[in-house]
């Protein structure tokens, strides 16, 4: 506690160091032409366990500008947003509003400082009307709601955004795009000065995106500072005034739009040092294990076709909204496909539920370790045996603890899960070790096909290397692996072939040896002509 205080007290004195010093010089140069930034973040660092999520990041937002933030998944964008909205407190660094240092300790503080954020999934109240949604956060509207006045004001706010729809209908009934508009209107009605938009376009149609940009440009002309996060490069280059690139939790560059090309931006995003050494032992894939033809699920993905061989790693590359996870879920039967066919070892199969998939020898390790991967209050051993529990039951259904412990101990050793014993509850483990338990529980089902969804996201480097070594071993045993990963420097060397997806469509299957980070990312972003 005392240590933290000291750090915080010293902070303003020690802040102007290294890169920050260089940047503040820039800022001073800007100051002549640009007005004072509305919001300014200096030297923000944040650590979660072993992960350095943000490392000395600085960013400023000018009134009336659209500032785009680019970076791969895990570059630290969402943590930065959480710092601005008071959800996460930085370990080091300070935030200034109009040049004054402020403490944003909660969502309410953020609202006080006129900072608002809207997300891919809007946070509306489905049971309230549109107008009520807009004004619910207002404290100064008195005890009694004047419904007519509220309706008129809601219509006026929407008019400022250049849209209109029935504000007296329940928010449950409106489209996602309209819900986002409502959130923007909510922010606007509170005289927001900084609006953060986190992937607002990911679930919108082209027409809706056009409308959203109309709204955004109106807000800009009204002097709002907008931080715009999107994976769609064409959108970023269409609307942004300045573009900041982040990578591995660090600030890389901030450039006015005219001085940056999409190709250059992609290079900055992927130009990361490969600090970890990935290498696969040479191996030759065997017979075709899984054949997937024109697989699709209404509203998620269409036309996915590939073969997976024994002892092969097929990488799935793509960005947020590429729907790679949905393909995994279809193969595992959680959200079954509704078109196309699947053949396993030459036999046509229908996978309707996870039990069917497990019976066929298909396992899926989820990307959402926290929400879906583990039963947190349960021990490592019972987590590892949960999907294959049938194997450890006596005829009358009693768990054979001895056999269970043997298998759990085997995996603890094989995956070097660091825990006092296999009886330790899963919630007591670090992220990396939890991930190893997730992998162990699927390996215990002795799968033929193993789908790994973001197997190394959010885990420390040591664990990453161990996961990679494990994949290498599994391949040598003839298991076919589908590896979904947003970490291209990892995916390229680990895969034999790479399937690139973009917005629910399969773009290409590339030989991993010939693919480059730029070529894959360009395809995933729909920027086929860039990067030479």
């Amino acid at each position, binding site marked *: 506690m005392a240590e933290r205080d000291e750090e915080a007290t010293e902070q303003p004195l020690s802040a102007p160091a290294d890169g920050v010093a260089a940047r503040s010089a820039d800022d001073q140069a800007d100051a002549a032409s640009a007005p004072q930034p509305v919001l300014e973040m200096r030297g923000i660092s944040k650590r979660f366990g072993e992960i350095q999520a943000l490392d000395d990041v600085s960013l400023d937002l000018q009134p009336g500008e659209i500032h785009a933030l680019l970076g791969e998944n895990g570059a630290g964008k969402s943590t930065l947003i959480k710092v601005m909205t008071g959800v996460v407190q930085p370990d080091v660094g300070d935030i200034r509003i109009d040049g004054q240092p402020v403490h944003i300790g*909660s*969502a*309410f503080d953020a*609202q006080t400082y006129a900072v608002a954020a809207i997300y891919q999934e809007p*946070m*509306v*109240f*489905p*049971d*309230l009307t549109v107008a*009520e949604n807009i004004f*619910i*956060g*207002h404290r100064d*509207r*008195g*005890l*009694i*709601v004047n*419904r007519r006045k509220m309706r008129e004001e809601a219509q006026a706010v929407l008019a400022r*955004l*250049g*849209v*209109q*729809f*029935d504000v007296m*209908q*329940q928010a*449950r*009934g*409106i*489209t996602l795009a309209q819900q986002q508009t409502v959130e923007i209107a*909510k922010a606007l009605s509170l005289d927001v000065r900084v609006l953060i938009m986190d992937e607002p376009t990911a679930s919108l149609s082209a*027409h809706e995106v*056009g*409308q959203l*940009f*109309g*709204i955004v*440009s109106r807000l*800009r002309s009204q002097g709002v500072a907008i931080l715009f996060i999107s994976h769609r490069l064409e959108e970023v280059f*269409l*609307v942004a005034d300045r573009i900041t690139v982040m990578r591995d939790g660090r600030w890389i560059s901030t450039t006015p739009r005219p001085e940056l090309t999409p190709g250059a931006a992609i290079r900055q995003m992927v130009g990361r040092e490969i600090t970890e050494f990935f290498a696969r032992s040479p191996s030759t894939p065997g017979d075709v294990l899984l054949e997937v033809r024109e697989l699709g699920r209404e509203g998620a993905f269409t036309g996915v076709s590939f073969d997976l061989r024994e002892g092969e790693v097929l990488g799935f590359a793509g960005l947020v909204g590429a729907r790679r996870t949905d393909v995994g879920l279809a193969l595992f039967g959680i959200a079954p496909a509704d078109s196309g066919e699947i053949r396993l070892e030459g036999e046509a199969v229908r996978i309707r539920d996870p039990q069917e998939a497990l019976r066929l020898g298909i396992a899926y390790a989820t990307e959402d370790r926290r929400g879906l991967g583990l039963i947190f209050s349960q021990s490592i051993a019972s987590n590892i045996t949960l999907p294959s529990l049938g194997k450890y039951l006596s005829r009358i259904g009693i768990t054979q603890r001895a056999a269970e412990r043997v298998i759990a101990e085997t995996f603890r050793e094989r995956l070097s899960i660091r825990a006092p014993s296999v009886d330790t509850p899963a919630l007591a483990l670090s992220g990396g070790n939890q991930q190893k338990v997730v992998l162990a529980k699927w390996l215990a089902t002795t799968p033929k096909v193993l789908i790994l969804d973001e197997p190394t996201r959010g885990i420390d480097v040591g664990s990453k290397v161990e996961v990679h070594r494990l994949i290498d071993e599994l391949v040598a045993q003839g298991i076919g692996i589908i590896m979904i990963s947003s970490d291209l420097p990892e995916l390229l060397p680990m895969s034999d072939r790479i399937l690139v997806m973009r917005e629910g469509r399969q773009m290409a299957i590339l030989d991993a040896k010939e693919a480059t980070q730029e070529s894959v990312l360009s395809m995933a972003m729909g920027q086929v002509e860039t990067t030479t």
Partner: protein
Amino acid sequence: MRSALFRHVRPEQVREITLLIIIVLLLLFFATQIPNFLSGRTFTRVTTAIPVTVVLGVGLTLVVLTRNIDLSIGATVAVVSYGVGTLLANDPSMSPVIVIALSVAIGVGLGAINGVIVAYGGVPAIVATLGTMALFRSVLVTITDSRPVTTARLPDWIVDLNGIRLISLEDLDVRILPVIALAVVIVFQLLLRYASYGRRLFAIGSNPDAAHVAGLPMKRDVFVAFVLCGALAGLGGFMYMARFGNIDTQSAVGLELVVVAAVVVGGVNIFGGSGSMIGVMLGAILIVLVDQGLIRWAAISEFLRDALLGLLILLAVASDTVILERLRLIWARARRAEEESSREPAATAGGEQP
């Protein structure tokens, strides 16, 4: 025609209209089966039977809207009716105003205990109120001599209160207690619809995460909901005393279940976020009507009434989840289609590029 319907009727009103239709159909059905069913006496009976349930239901709805529940309302009624009844029996000269104020004040106090434990103590409402339900009644037994309150010991004005008729047409009476209950329904329906506090209750139950992000004073609002629920339970306790007169410490046992039933049948979502006071009142009327009908209908044993009530609750919840959800979707689609066709020019104007 279709679009007019969509404009004037909202999905949440479908429940109230359906209840109304069911009530009318049931009335007509019983009228064909029971001689003289459609009479002033039936009206009088139904309206005398519901006031306590309705007043408690209104209070409980405030709590249920926020995704909580209050199982202690039956015990609160017992504490108030027995406690105040005892005081009144000992000192019959107490003024009616003080008696009512005292009833409500005791309710407020007990509601505040629940509110503190749930909103500020973070104890799940079902656990907290299960506990206070036992606690309130036991305190009542401990601090009193458990001597029953009887009409003979109560002053005349309270015994007569239940019989006061505001309007009397032959055998159709409009008595005072149902009028008070109706006033409570109207006041709180207006609160839900027009007060910002009422709208916040919907917001909290509708999406607690969003309510948190929007910076709503959730704890305070939930606390106040429990206090109001307690206050109405206090008023209900007074009405209970006026209606029954003979009260012991075991009065109103299980009353909370009847009230929860009325609330659920009245279309209040048990997981919060939707419901109306009118619906609760209609729910209570429907339950009492089934009761009254079965008592007088020769074809079916009156003992079947609780079995039917169970079925009614199940149907109400199932229709809410299964049918109403679907209806909402159809509604939304229709509205959207309508909007899109009428609003093309505006849409293109909004889509202008810088």
